């Protein structure tokens, strides 16, 4: 049973436009969420995170939105740049329960077209 789902395997966006990557989760115990970016032949790198006590977190061009009632989070990249082309993974964790494990989604491959 996939507890964290990224239903779009791929997404193409024009340079300068907004990229919106989506993630759904099923376990209401998750209370911390992260986005990682992964380039080919490299390890994932941390991008941005959000705690369940917030509904939005912003860092430069990247904003993560959390809708707890819908069990949905999204990553907005504005404006999108060709260097943003990568695979994006969302991850969820149960910090409050004292566990330190992430559950990852299957990833969305973003291609930003110049």
């Amino acid at each position, binding site marked *: 049973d996939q507890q964290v789902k990224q239903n779009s395997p791929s997404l193409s966006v024009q340079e300068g436009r907004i990229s919106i990557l989506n993630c759904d989760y099923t376990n209401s115990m998750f209370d911390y969420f992260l986005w990682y970016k992964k380039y080919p032949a490299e*390890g*994932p790198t941390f991008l941005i*995170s959000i705690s369940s006590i917030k509904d939005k977190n912003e860092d430069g061009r990247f904003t993560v939105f959390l809708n707890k009632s819908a069990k949905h989070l999204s990553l907005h990249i504005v404006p999108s740049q060709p260097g943003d082309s990568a695979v994006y993974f969302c991850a969820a964790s149960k910090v409050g329960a004292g566990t*330190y494990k992430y559950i990852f989604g299957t990833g969305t491959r973003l291609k930003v077209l110049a």
Partner: protein
Amino acid sequence: DAGITQSPRYKITETGRQVTLMCHQTWSHSYMFWYRQDLGHGLRLIYYSAAADITDKGEVPDGYVVSRSKTENFPLTLESATRSQTSVYFCASRDYPKETQYFGPGTRLLVL
């Protein structure tokens, strides 16, 4: 170099052989993790360690063994490799109490 390193970066082995993947971090982070990445599954946790000599299973531990005698090293051993263990393996570390995990560059393993 500071950070987290993995070796080897690429490995080809045969079914039934024992293989050890190495992970080394220079930050003295207490937590370390092993993941495998497979198409259609994302990253799945194999084992993790909260400190030296403390390890615990993740989602997919079968066929793997870990040890952590020193804080900076967290080797992953496939005792008898199977084709289903062909994957890309990532090691990560976490600086408690911060939540963020930092990943190594990965080891691509092919089991023939």
